[in-house]
């Protein structure tokens, strides 16, 4: 039978097994953020032309490890922690099958370690994408497969917990919106993992070189691999938006403007977000324009519509809550009076803005069939996804951990002063890195490239000086961002190891927030306050989007004719 404790801060009934699993998964995630982040710093210092730190062999090794450890391992460990949190804790339920959850955890850890060993041994520098027919060591693929199986077990535990919580009636009504977001992430994760299995298991067998599978088709590999590779980043999007909604609720008691609209936006993700895997195939041979257009547009951009809705409803919910508290002057008093010194808020706010402007807009532009021709495989691509997965997802995860870690461990943060600045340092550092990488990409600088000076090439190419400048500025920005990441890791590890125990606040004796969810039953739906400030911000976003979109068509119209 499950044992529970009551959270002194929130009044949630916490299953002790879930508590422990969330902590272990989150801590492991942070360890891999450290490892993957260090590899990333080495990559940035090598691509900074004036520094050019690593030799070619080490550079490609570090780049492979960086991609795997942060894109996959950090994000997914943290997401498993979020899945257990949004199911067992938010539903006041027991975590079903804790043993299975632990098996999943150890499989993920073992798998991640195995793949890292393969990469560090040096003969598996095949990049995150491991395109065939370039072959890595068999345990490179096996490690990823084990990691994925572990994550799949985590998803199974999540769905079983949802099911049992409903059956055992631990809650009334529909699951919380945040849990719905977690479920969206879990559904995309299941698609991701199953698709990954379809391609990686045969690739593993092929790498054993026993003749069972003599060859893997490169084009089919790309289609199916990206079904996993791109969708794995869509798990992040769904999870990060669940974090946004959670933070709005925790800090502001914000209620979604409309359950119907927000949940429908998540439904668009469930149905269509994974189709965007086709973004990677737009410059590939043999796929029809119909296939490319339909898939790359997530079916008429319905999943983008979903993101634009969340982009309005998250700040909108905060605006409504702030206006209810009386911050009602003008368009933006609600925003000016927000707790900008609280890293939970500032991290979330920066994540919303930077994800929208840097990650979101550029993703749609890269994913436009013809525009992709002037972007594919250039530095613009890593520029884009540092705008999504770094200043979007990672920053959102950092923000929520400033609340989650002190709450779950019941400890005070060790460096609250540093924490105050950390989201700005990390967000602006990595945000600028993203912008400069994209700038270099528009000048044609290739991604995954050790030397754009072509010192050893018999032929060579000379990039404009602006390209070197952009790469240098990207390097400087990445160093600043890494400092921000370092402070986060230090704060998390420090708090867990040496943080002072929290003194329970007197008010915490009565779990007020949890007990009075219906403080404002009439507000929601038609009773919702108008959100003019958010609407104005949304229009600013849309205007930027439209202008930048057509600027790119103009660039495209200037290049050689192709048909």
């Amino acid at each position, binding site marked *: 039978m499950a044992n529970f404790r009551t959270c002194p801060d929130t009044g949630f009934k916490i299953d002790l097994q879930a508590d422990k699993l969330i902590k272990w998964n989150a801590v492991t995630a942070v360890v891999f953020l450290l490892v993957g982040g260090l590899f990333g710093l080495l990559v940035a210092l090598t691509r900074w032309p004036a520094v050019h730190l690593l030799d070619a062999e080490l550079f490609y090794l570090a780049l492979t490890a960086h991609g795997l450890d942060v894109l996959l391992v950090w994000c997914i460990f943290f997401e498993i922690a979020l899945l257990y949190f949004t199911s067992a804790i938010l539903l006041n339920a027991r975590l079903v099958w804790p043993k299975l959850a632990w098996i999943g955890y150890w499989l993920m850890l073992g798998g991640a370690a195995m793949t890292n060993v393969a990469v560090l041994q040096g003969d598996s520098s095949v990049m995150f994408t491991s395109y065939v027919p370039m072959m890595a060591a068999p345990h490179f693929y096996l490690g990823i497969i084990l990691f994925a199986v572990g994550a799949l077990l985590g998803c199974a535990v999540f769905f079983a917990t949802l099911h049992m919580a409903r059956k055992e009636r631990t809650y009334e009504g529909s699951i919380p919106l945040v849990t719905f977001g977690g479920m969206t992430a879990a559904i995309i994760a299941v698609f991701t993992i199953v698709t990954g299995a379809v391609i990686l298991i045969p690739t593993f067998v092929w790498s054993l070189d026993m003749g069972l599978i003599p060859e893997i088709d490169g084009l089919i590999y790309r289609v199916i691999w990206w079904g996993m590779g791109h969708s794995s980043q869509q798990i992040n999007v769904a999870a990060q938006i669940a974090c946004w909604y959670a933070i709005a609720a925790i800090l502001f008691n914000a209620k979604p403007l409309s359950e119907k609209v927000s949940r429908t936006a998540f439904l668009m993700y469930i149905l269509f977000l994974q189709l965007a895997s086709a973004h990677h195939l737009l410059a590939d041979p043999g796929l029809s324009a119909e296939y490319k257009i339909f898939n790359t547009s997530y079916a008429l951009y319905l999943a983008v519509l979903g993101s634009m809705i969340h982009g309005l409803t998250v700040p909108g919910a905060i605006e409504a809550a702030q206006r209810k508290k009386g911050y009602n002057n003008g368009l933006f008093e609600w925003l000016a009076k927000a707790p900008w010194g609280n890293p939970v808020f500032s991290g979330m706010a920066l994540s919303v803005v930077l994800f929208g402007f840097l990650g979101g807009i550029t993703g749609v532009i890269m994913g436009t069939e013809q525009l992709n021709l002037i972007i594919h495989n250039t530095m613009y691509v890593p520029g884009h996804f540092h705008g999504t997965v770094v200043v979007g997802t990672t920053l959102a995860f950092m923000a929520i951990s400033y609340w989650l870690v002190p709450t779950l461990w019941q400890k005070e943060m060790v460096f609250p002063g540093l924490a105050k600045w950390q989201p700005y340092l990390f967000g602006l550092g990595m945000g600028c890195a993203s912008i400069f990488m994209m700038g270099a990409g528009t000048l044609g600088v290739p991604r995954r490239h050790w030397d754009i000076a072509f010192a050893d090439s018999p032929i060579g190419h000379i990039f404009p000086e602006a390209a070197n400048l952009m790469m240098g500025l990207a390097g400087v920005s990445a160093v600043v961002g890494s400092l921000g990441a370092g402070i986060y890791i230090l704060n998390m590890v420090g708090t867990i190891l040496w943080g002072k125990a929290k003194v329970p606040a007197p008010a915490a004796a009565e779990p007020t927030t949890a007990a009075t969810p219906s403080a404002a039953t009439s507000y929601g739906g038609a009773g919702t306050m108008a959100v003019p400030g958010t609407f104005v911000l949304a229009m600013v976003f849309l205007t930027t989007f*439209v202008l930048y979109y057509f600027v790119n068509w103009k660039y495209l*119209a200037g290049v050689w004719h192709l048909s």
Partner: protein
Amino acid sequence: MSIFPTEEKIWWNEPVEKSEVLWVAISFIWALIMFFMMPYWHFAGEQNLSNEAYQISPDAFEEKTEAFAAKYTVREDPVSGYPIVAPPAGSDVYMYGKKWEWWPMLELQEGKSYRFHLSSLDYMHGWSLLPENINLQIIPNYEMVLTVTPTSNGEFSVVCNEFCGIGHHDMVGKIFVKK
């Protein structure tokens, strides 16, 4: 609150506040505009990929490329010794990528169209024409066919922008375009 179960048993029928409805409507219109830009460009634009492609073995493609070079080579590049091939306007042009070179070099005429055939003899490569910044994914066993019309002249590089092994960053080809 978003972290608690819904307060209403039936929330689907709650009316939605009007700025939210307006935003959904505006966003949907924008989504449709972006969607229809792509088919529109196939009719009105000059930069589209055909989906003409063939399955071909690396050996067969190498043979075709060598036959093409033998027919139209005009001189050698003095620095690298690569053949420079000048095919007549409108003809078929072959170029392959392999570790770590694009072969052969080409000499084209501005404003004339050529039927390009691109493939790889080993790993995947990225065909990145600079400074135009046109980028294609080149995959072994597949021959990609597209019609290319240079609209500017001078010396252009083909850089590899898909990782293809330790010499990847040395892989550069050239296309010269004459007025």
